Every structure is written in structure tokens, then in C-alpha cells.
């Protein structure tokens, strides 16, 4: 930043913060009674209850209800301890898996040159 923009920024900051004080025309008079200095009529017990308990409670229930409705859609989550009893699904597998597996000869299964890795959890 060059000197000119620095000066411009400084001048703007001073004007914006001090300006309202300098533009005193009686509105910002700090002596004497002010708006909002005296308390209002207050809320009745019912209004207090409604405003601070019922309305937030209602909002919470609506949000919670929406979340609860969303949660059920994807089904129960997988937990390793719970086990698995679903039918196996083979993505991009042979057209007829049972036949294909049964037709694998003994020497085919021992085909050398296969690689890969194993793991458990």
C-alpha cells in the first residue's frame, strides 16, 4: 500500500468513527432521560412461558422430528459385532455365480501368479 491509500484509509476511519459524535445535533445528548431508560410493562407469566419455553421447545421438536425421519431411511448401520446374515451380492460378477463357482476346476483354483492382499477387522 502506498502512502496515499494509507492516508485515505486513515481519514475514512477517523470520519466514520468520530463522525456521528461530531454531527451532534441534540439526538445523542447523553444527559437527561433517554429512550429505553425506563423498563416497560413487562410480560405476564403466560407470555413468559410461551416465549421462552414453548416456542423454542416447538422449534426443537420440529428439527428433531425432521432429523429422526431422515435417519431411518438408510437402514440400520453396520456394526462389526452384530454380524451379517444378508445374501451375498456380487458386483460386476459372472452372469451365473453359483454355476461359475462350481465349474472352477481344481487346477484353475491353484493358478499361479495371482496377487493381492488380505486383512481382517
Amino acid at each position, binding site marked *: 500500500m502506498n502512502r496515499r491509500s494509507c492516508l485515505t484509509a486513515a481519514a475514512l476511519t477517523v470520519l466514520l468513527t468520530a463522525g456521528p459524535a461530531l454531527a451532534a445535533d441534540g439526538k445523542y445528548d447523553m444527559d437527561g432521560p433517554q429512550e429505553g431508560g425506563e423498563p416497560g410493562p413487562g410480560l405476564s407469566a403466560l407470555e413468559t412461558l410461551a416465549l421462552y419455553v414453548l416456542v423454542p421447545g416447538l422449534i426443537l421438536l420440529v428439527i428433531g422430528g425432521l432429523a429422526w425421519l431422515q435417519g431411518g431411511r438408510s437402514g440400520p448401520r453396520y456394526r462389526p459385532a452384530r454380524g451379517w446374515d444378508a445374501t451375498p*451380492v456380487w458386483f460386476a460378477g459372472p452372469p451365473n*455365480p453359483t454355476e461359475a463357482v462350481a465349474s472352477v476346476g481344481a487346477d484353475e483354483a491353484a493358478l499361479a501368479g495371482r496377487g*493381492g492382499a488380505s486383512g481382517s477387522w
Partner: protein
Amino acid sequence: MAPGKEKAQAQLVEGGLPVRAQQRIQDAIETTRRENGLDVSVLVGDLALDDPSQFRAGVERLHAALGSRAHTAVLIVVAPGQRRAEVVTGPGVRRRVPDRVCALAVLSMTTAFGGGDLSGGVVDAIRQIADAAGRRESLAPLEQSMTSAELVAQHH
């Protein structure tokens, strides 16, 4: 394909993978075929084995069951009940997808599965393997994308 889709709907009722999760895996497989020219197949389900120690051998049988595809195919097997994950690479694809890449993919899968995320773990593993394999000419999409069957991998 229609019976496959009906069975896919039944998966949700039986407590298997939700349909959305199955779709994510299917999309990842198709993307890998198209963009990396890599044949990836994924099996999610337990194997019915007489001898639990023959799990790896059973998985290799499944890989051989891919028939003519087996030479250049990568098979990922996830058994959520038996809690085992396996990757098998055919001889023709071992240079593109070395064993260390498979080991990393299995590690990320088992970490995800331990935290309860089945489809996310599978999709991430497919992406890792696809990235390692690099881009090649696209493979044609398979006609039958998903099958559900009682698989029996037995050993004599």
C-alpha cells in the same frame, strides 16, 4: 437385470447393504472400467466354508470363477460377518496393481469397516486401486451389473 434389481431391493429388507450403498459401489466399478480400463469386481457377503482357514483359497476360487476375465481382473471380497477383506489380482494385472497397493487398499478397507462404513470403505479401495493402475483404454460396460446368489465356496 430386472431380477437382479428386485433382489437388490430385497437386500434392504433383509438387512444387507442399503440400495444407495450398492449404487455407489456399482458407480465406482463402472467409472473404473470406463476411465482406467480396469476390470474390478466386488463381492460383499460371507463365504460358506467348511474350513474357515481356507478363506483365501475360497476367495481365489471366486476369482477363477470370473472365467476369461480372471487373467486381468481384480476381485475385492468383503465378508462383513466373518470380518475379512481380500483383494485378488489376476496375473495379467499384477504389474498395474502391485501387491503393496492391494495391501494399502485392504488396510483402508478394514479401518473403514471397523468404524461401520462398508460402502465408503469399498469405494475408497476401488479408487485407490484405480489410481495406482493408471489410465488405459476404456473397457465396455458389463451387461449384467449385479447378481445376488447363495455362494458356496467349498474346498475338498
